[in-house]
């Protein structure tokens, strides 16, 4: 048959093909119209179910591809090649519509199967059969499979049965590949043929009539195409007959159920089942559910179920890959979630609880069971809200923050916050009834989400957000306090830590330095932060930075520098704060890691300004380092203490430059200011620092500038004294005071402090108001070497002691170690007690005052 058609096709002339086209298109339309009128909906359904099947069979195929199928595959390929050649040949000769081509392929596959039958090659049959099934899906016209296909599979089944019967009788074994092929076909054909059972039956009943019905009609027309189009009306005619038989269920499901309340749930079930499978058209499903939701007046239970499924289906659109959810879908999901909450608020006897039992709702609607107050619907509102939140974040991550699109998107945060807030109210309502056993955790999660949305915002913004949410606004600080305290009392682990950090962050943002610092210290997070997940570590780093900035605004330069040191000194601020990915030069990052890292990035509106951060850090470092440099410069025996390596490196680099132009960026400004300060020109330093533009980003810019000017004056005085002390016998306080524009009381206080801390070998003469520098304090080389030697000796002893103590696990606490309060000279708050001294930085000891350390290395890479 196929040969005949093809032959006809071949013989058809070019001139006629045009006519064909015209005709066929008309015909097609007609057919379509017919088809549509009968079952538009159905076709959707059909497609879906078929796709399912297909994916099923695909899955089944999976494991079999091993072993013998390798061989088959190669067979396959060669065949395909042949085919390609063929089709190429054909393509060169004439133009055919895609559908025609498919038909041809189908025909050739069928003939291959027939060949296989003749020589009893089951492996060939198996592979061809697979191909056939794949092809037929594409060719399916409406709900009907092509005749030839039906014939082929019917024949094949018969042949297979025969073979199986023969197998039983003859002792001769088939070879392994063949047997396997046979088995495969057997399994698949049974499954497959079920779907076409009616057609096959029709074919079996009267094979000729079945086939002929095709043949007769196309005869007057051009052959191959006619077959296809002619087929359709007949089939549809047949189909109508058959409606009463095999197809009825499928049909009615698609058409009638659509609008009846009883079967909504069945419908939902199919959608849920198809979730996550290949080739599911999610958009289509969403549309179906939307209509469901809109049109049908349904019970709250159904509404809840539909909305739940609908929302998750919307989220599925964004799933997979890094692509974020489409904007309209997000908005729709947000709306749906809102209406879900609305229903739940209205229908108090319906509750959505995690871990509730599924209702068997196929037959009858679930009702509230006897003796219980609620109808429990399985599901989780909090998860939906969380997902919604995450999706927004993801989309914000993807949008360029400098466009207006970003701002538009950001406005959605308000409605999201609203939803979170409503969800929170709902959960609080649920929690009131102990019988529901709503886990504390869900409430915690939702509160955490709320907190996450407010903690980094200034009080005014929070206030607006709150006002929009429920027309009522309290003190933002109080809100944060309540939320985080609640979490602190009722949760543990990560949520607890996060709540704590959020509160600290907020306090630090609002200039409550001491409160935030004390909280940070009492939280003891610096010890355990390394055990938390990366997002929390990032939050910890952010909080740390914020506390540091807060200290700076307060004018506490030392504390600020100390706090920022760990983050800014590492040179990886971007990574540590999740505000950008560093380019890795040496270590190769796998794409997987890179993707994770990208996911962790914070959306732009949450960023802490890195330039400002660097500026603050460098300025603080300058104020501490320059006097220190001056001090160590004049007396070489003082142990070289480095406060900030990063700063030193920059300074060295700056000094190496032969020509220095006017400062351009923040760093240049600070470096030039450092140089000026080191030379005692405090005014110039102040000018440089003041001309940094980024200060404008700080609130109270002027205060900060005056504070800095004051600090520079003082540190300038100290630097001056350190640098020039060796060249003076006496210095009048009045001179110093006019030089640095400080009043003489302040100057003498500074000098007194230096003398008292033995930083300066001098004394004050009260009568003449002068500083007298002591003579003979300059050491000879031998003397300073001796001092160094003695230092080294004692540190050697100490190291030995420590080693021994470690070895014996502290049991040999026999030796009394001196209380080494290292480096706390200048107001060091580190009440350093014993403890292991970390290399070169004694301030960072226990004592309970420093909270750096911990989350660093780990926060970068999982």
């Amino acid at each position, binding site marked *: 048959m196929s040969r005949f058609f093809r032959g006809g096709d071949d013989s058809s002339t070019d001139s006629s093909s045009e006519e064909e086209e015209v005709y066929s298109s008309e015909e097609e339309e007609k057919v379509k119209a017919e088809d549509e009128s009968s079952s538009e909906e159905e076709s959707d359904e059909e497609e879906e179910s078929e796709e399912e099947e297909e994916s099923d069979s695909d899955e089944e195929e999976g494991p079999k591809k091993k072993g013998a199928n390798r061989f088959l595959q190669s067979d396959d390929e060669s065949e395909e090649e042949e085919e390609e050649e063929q089709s190429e040949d054909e393509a060169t000769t004439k133009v055919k519509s895609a559908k025609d081509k498919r038909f041809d392929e189908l025909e050739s596959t069928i003939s291959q199967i027939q060949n296989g039958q003749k020589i009893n090659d089951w492996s060939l049959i198996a592979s061809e059969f697979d191909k056939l099934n794949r092809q037929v899906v594409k060719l399916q016209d409406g709900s009907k499979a092509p005749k030839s296909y039906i014939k082929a599979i019917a024949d094949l089944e018969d042949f297979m049965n025969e073979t199986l019967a023969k197998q039983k009788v003859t002792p001769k074994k088939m070879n392994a590949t063949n047997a396997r092929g046979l088995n495969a076909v057997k399994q698949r054909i049974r499954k497959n043929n079920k779907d076409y059972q009616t057609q096959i039956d029709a074919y079996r009943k009267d094979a000729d009539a079945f086939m002929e019905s095709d043949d007769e009609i196309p005869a007057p027309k051009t052959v191959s195409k006619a077959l296809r189009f002619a087929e359709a009306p007949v089939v549809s005619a047949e189909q109508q007959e058959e409606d009463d038989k095999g197809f009825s269920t499928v049909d009615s499901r698609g058409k009638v159920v659509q609008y009846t309340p009883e079967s909504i749930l069945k419908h939902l079930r199919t959608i849920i089942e198809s979730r996550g499978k290949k080739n599911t058209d999610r958009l289509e499903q969403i549309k179906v559910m939307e209509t469901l939701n809109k049109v049908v007046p349904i019970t709250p239970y159904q509404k809840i179920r539909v909305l739940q499924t609908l929302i998750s289906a919307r989220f599925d659109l964004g799933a997979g890959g890094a692509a974020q959810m489409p904007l309209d879908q997000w908005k729709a999901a947000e709306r749906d979630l809102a209406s879900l909450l609305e229903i739940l608020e209205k229908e108090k006897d319906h509750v959505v609880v995690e871990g509730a039992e599924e209702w068997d709702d196929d037959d009858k609607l679930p009702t509230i069971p006897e003796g219980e107050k609620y109808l429990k619907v399985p599901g989780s509102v909090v998860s939906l809200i969380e997902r919604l939140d995450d999706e927004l974040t993801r989309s914000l991550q993807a949008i360029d923050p400098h466009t207006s699109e970003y701002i538009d998107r950001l406005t959605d945060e308000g409605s999201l916050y609203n939803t979170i807030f409503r969800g929170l109210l709902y959960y609080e309502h649920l929690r009131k009834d102990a019988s529901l056993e709503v886990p504390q955790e869900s409430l915690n999660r939702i509160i955490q989400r709320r907190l996450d949305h407010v903690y980094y915002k200034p009080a005014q913004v929070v206030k607006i957000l709150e006002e929009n949410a429920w027309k009522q606004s309290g003190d933002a600080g109080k809100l944060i306090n309540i939320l985080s305290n609640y979490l602190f009392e009722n949760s543990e682990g990560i949520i607890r830590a996060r709540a704590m950090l959020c509160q600290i962050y907020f306090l630090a943002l609002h200039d409550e330095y001491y409160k935030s610092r004390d909280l940070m210290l009492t939280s003891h997070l610096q010890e355990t932060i390394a055990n938390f997940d990366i997002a929390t570590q990032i939050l910890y780093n952010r909080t740390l930075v914020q506390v540091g900035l807060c200290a700076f605004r307060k004018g506490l330069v030392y504390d600020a520098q100390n706090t920022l040191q760990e983050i800014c000194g590492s040179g990886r601020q971007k990574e540590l704060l999740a505000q950008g990915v560093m380019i890795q030069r040496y270590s190769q990052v796998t794409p997987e890691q890179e993707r994770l890292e990208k996911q962790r990035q914070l959306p732009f509106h949450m960023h802490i300004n890195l330039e400002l951060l660097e500026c603050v850090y460098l300025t603080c470092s300058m104020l501490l380092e320059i006097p220190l440099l001056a001090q160590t410069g004049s007396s070489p025996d003082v142990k070289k203490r480095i406060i900030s390596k990063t700063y030193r490196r920059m300074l060295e680099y700056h000094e190496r430059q032969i020509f220095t132009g006017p400062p351009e960026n923040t760093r240049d400004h600070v470096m030039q200011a450092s140089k000026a300060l080191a030379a005692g020109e405090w005014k110039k330093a102040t000018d440089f620092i003041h001309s940094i533009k980024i200060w404008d980003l700080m609130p109270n810019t002027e205060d900060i500038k005056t504070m800095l000017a004051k600090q520079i004056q003082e540190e300038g005085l100290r630097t001056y004294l350190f640098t020039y002390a060796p060249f003076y016998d006496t210095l009048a306080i009045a001179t110093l005071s006019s030089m640095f524009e400080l009043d003489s009381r302040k100057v003498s206080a500074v000098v007194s*402090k230096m003398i*008292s801390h033995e930083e300066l070998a001098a004394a004050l*003469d009260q*009568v003449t108001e002068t500083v007298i520098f002591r003579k003979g304090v300059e050491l000879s080389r031998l003397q300073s070497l001796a*001092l160094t030697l003695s230092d080294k000796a004692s540190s050697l002893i100490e190291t030995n002691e420590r080693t021994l103590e470690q070895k014996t696990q502290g049991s040999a606490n026999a030796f009394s170690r001196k209380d080494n309060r290292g480096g706390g000279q200048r107001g060091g708050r580190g009440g350093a007690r014993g403890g292991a001294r970390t290399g070169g930085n004694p301030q960072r000891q226990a004592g309970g005052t420093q909270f750096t350390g911990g989350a660093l290395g780990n926060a970068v890479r999982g």
Partner: protein
Amino acid sequence: MASTSPAATNGDAAPASYDLVLKLAPHLDRHMIFPLLEFNAGRLKEDEQDKAREILAAKYALLKKTNMTDYVANLYCELEGLKEPPAEYAERRQKVFHQLEKYEQETAKITELLQRDDVVNNLRSDKVANLEFLKKEHEVTLDMVNALYDFGQLQYSCGNYADASELLYRFRVLSTDNDKVSYATWGRLACEILSMSWESAMEELQKVREGIDTRLANNPLAQLQHRTQLVHWALFPLFNYDKAREPLLDLFFNAGFINTIQANSPWILRYLTVAVITNRGRAKNAGVQQKQMKDIVRIVKQEAYEYQDPVTRFVHALCIDFDFEEAQHQLVLAEEVLRSDFFLLAHADDFVDSARHLIFESYCKIHARISLKDLSARLGLNNDDAEKWIVNLIRDTRLDAKIDYKEGTVVMNHPPSSVYQQVIERTKGGFFRTQVLTAAVAR
């Protein structure tokens, strides 16, 4: 160092605003607050009738719940201006007497037993065995032991501190109930403090402290609260019993307690500061005193944002800012504060004297030449007195200083610490430490 002394801004507030009674009260027992109120009432002048009445009302409210019925009745009369107390007080009094009698009977036997030598001699250190022994031989029941506790509480509530203390002591010997024993210890401490027997108070204090350290080790919050309370109670012996000074200072500077003070009750810093400053020269070990001084400076600085009064500001100005004028100013204020403080009244002069020493010491350390006139002004003395004072000081502290009478100056001589001395200092402990090390390795 960044923040200049905030003292200058609010240094001149009235001493009344530094009254700590309200802050102390929540951590003290009723009976202990009473003397504080009494003291406040005593300081009032004639024309402050309203305040006197206020205090009277406070006293009444304070004692209403105790069983000191007679006194409460009197207070009530005074407050309401009645001659005869209402009948309910007589009733209550009667009730208390009944209770007393009842307990007396219940505990008579056990008290009698514990006074007999033959019984007491048979008691061992093992409490359980003791109880067994008493049960077997003398038919003492657990209820009788507990009655001792209740009786003690009642006695205390009536103000019979000595009796209460005795009863609680007996109870403690016998009881095996750990919680009650620790309550009894607190109770005894209160009794001893109120009956001013400081030595036994110190013993009890030590016991309470051990209890806190061991029993509450895994309940940080309770530990904190108990420590706070203990610190407050310890103020009584600290300023009333000289021998208690050093052990108590040790206690206060213990890591746990100093943290408690910083976290929960920074106002204690005033007392601690005064105690440390007045302790100078008296301490046997100058090194310890110096260390405590350093600690107090550090803590005062750390807590400056939370608590300030003239005493701590004085320390801040002197030891952190080196602002001598400010220090002098604060000293004057501090003296006033001290004179109006229940605990510190007796130590005001002492404090001022020690503080002057302190000022002078750090002044001398920094200056090479000081004008006598200026110094006397700074110390708040006239010229001759100042001269005498300085001479005494130089003699006492062996300062290397001379008075140049002609110029009217004190000349300091600061010998630079010699390099050789430094090297010797640094290597001094080396040998000993190495020896210890070798010994440890050999073990």
